[in-house]
């Protein structure tokens, strides 16, 4: 574990613009996520909804970013695109130096498996499988042999302090424990980014704090964390907040601005 309290390298606005303003160019590998003019439209029964209207985002390794915005702002769409669950109608998306906006469905599945760890609001654990088996799942699809899978899944669960609950099923665990199983599952494949969608949406405030401490711990260990939320308290844990409005980025700031209003965290 790296020293707690050490500031992660934050990208500056100028640096980001320098990366996003050169269409077609592969970004330096230090930039884990670069999007250029990302657009996504939906056909809602004849009416075209422009969910994203040209979004430029650049995120450097080990950044801890919150994406905020009111409902309908396009933050879910952006998350789906960043998570490679969806593909843009226009624009580029570079993830770890790969142009994923051009990839096939099977290749995207592989990218999700290797590069992205998802944490969902509703946990999305398989209800009938044990915590261990849930955490093993990404490794199953990565083709990791059974013994190694068990070892790595157990390690991941120990990392989120659930080493004594590995054979419990989701319904035998509390909400916070379930979300930690989900985090263990997201981390088991050592992904480039941890992508959390309203990770505390179904949790009470105490448990939310607990989960936020887990995220902070991961961030301080060098994990890149991207979190979509509509709760300012939760977003305040991040070091950088991107706010979306009507399918465009309305602000992209360092956390320092919010610090004063923050409650003390575990650090």
């Amino acid at each position: 574990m790296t020293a707690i309290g050490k500031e992660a390298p934050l990208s500056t606005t100028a640096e980001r613009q320098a990366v996003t303003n050169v269409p077609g160019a592969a970004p330096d590998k230090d930039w884990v996520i670069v999007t250029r003019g990302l657009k996504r439209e939906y056909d809602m029964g004849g009416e075209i909804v422009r969910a994203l209207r040209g979004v430029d985002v650049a995120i450097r390794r080990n950044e801890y970013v919150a994406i905020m915005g009111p409902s309908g702002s396009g933050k879910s769409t952006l998350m789906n695109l960043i998570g490679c669950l969806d593909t843009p109608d226009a624009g580029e998306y570079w993830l770890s130096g790969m142009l994923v906006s051009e990839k096939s469905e099977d290749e995207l599945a592989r990218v999700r498996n290797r590069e992205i760890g998802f944490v969902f609001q509703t946990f999305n654990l398989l209800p009938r499988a044990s915590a261990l088996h849930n955490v093993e799942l990404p490794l199953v699809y990565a083709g990791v042999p059974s013994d190694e899978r068990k070892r790595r899944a157990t390690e991941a669960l120990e990392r989120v302090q659930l080493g004594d609950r590995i054979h419990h099923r989701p319904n035998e665990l509390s909400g916070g424990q379930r979300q930690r199983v989900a985090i263990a599952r997201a981390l088991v494949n050592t992904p480039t980014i941890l992508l959390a969608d309203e990770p505390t949406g179904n949790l009470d405030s105490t448990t939310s704090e607990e989960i936020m401490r887990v995220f902070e711990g991961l961030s301080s260990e060098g994990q890149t964390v991207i979190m979509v939320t509509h709760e300012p308290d939760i977003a305040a844990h991040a070091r950088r907040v991107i706010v979306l409005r009507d399918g465009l980025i309305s602000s992209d700031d360092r956390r320092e601005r919010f610090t004063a209003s923050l409650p003390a965290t575990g650090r």
Partner: protein
Amino acid sequence: MPFREAIWLALAQIRVQKLKSFFTLLGVTIGVMFLIAVISIVQGMSSYMENDFAAKMLGVNTFTLRRFPWFGDGAGTEEEWRQWQRRPRFYHSDLPLVASVLPAGARYAVESQEFLQASSQYARPKQVEAHAVDGDYFTIKKYDVARGRLFTQQEATLGAPVVVIGDEVAKYFFRDLDPIGREFRVRGIPYSVIGILEKQGSVFGLSLDRVAIAPFNSPLHRSTNPRGDVDGIMVQLPTALAMTDAMESVREVMRGRRKLRPGEPDNFFMETSASALAFMDKLKSIMTMAGTAFPAIGLVVGGLVIMNIMLVAVAERTREIGIRKSLGARSKDILRQFIVEAATLSTLGAMVGIVLGILLAKAIEWKTPLPATVAPWSIVMATLLGTVVGIVSGVYPAKRAAALDPIEALRKE
């Protein structure tokens, strides 16, 4: 996802939903059960035919000269049947000619038989299978007496009214008595019982012990064949090799005697165990086809049920599919998962069906005269069939599952 993983997953899924799986499998299980039972019965019958029936009814290395086949597949058309009826009959006087062309060591006998009313002082009248025979009949049929004796050459020549009876006849007509020396009437004509045959058992539930055998020259012949002809001339050769030659020689002399021109067909038939078995093969294929058609319908229905249940499963587990896809499952992983699940389910159903089918076949064998033999290939075939039904019925639901959009699937409650 590796194959083993998919099977493990499918078994876990089946374990969780035992009752539902049971009902899903019912169609395939029942289909396979009847399939196995039918094949076992057909197999049993055919091995029985080959091992017991042919030897018991027709004898080893034996052919019987007749007007038309008795055990064959019958006349193909009414026209053929009429033609058979017009054929000349065989008479005892044909025997010396036939015998003259046979090699040394060959045995021969005339045979006439009819179901006739028999009676004794001790029981109500009943039908028996009466045979009027001479020559080496007993030797060819491998008949020996349990008690008493067979008739002598002298009795045969003179046509003495003596009779050798089967085990069942002895038990029925002379219950608790020693039949030897007692009077036994066939069509009202008295015969003296001189011997009782060893128990022969039965073929397809037909008893071989319900016989009464008297010399050909005795009055019995007038009862079995009032026209004075004989049903057939049995010939047994010492070796299988001698059979073909002997049959050809007999054929030639018979054609000569009947003045058949070259090109004209034979107006007689030489029945062998092979010719009877050829008919059995025909019967077997008809039975197999008819007997498998119904189970096949069962399997189709079973497949449709599985398809339906898998479609429901895909709908129920949409969220699971979304989760798996978000974690890196490719469409083909999902496709494989659901096909393997359907195939595992169906194979399991087939396996249960195989066990039940074997039990059913054994029950039929126990309760009816039909024999049953479980063929190993039928077990392998039924298992594969179960797997194939599962794969075929799993493809469509699995494709639907694989085509789900992960975002939509994750949103589903």
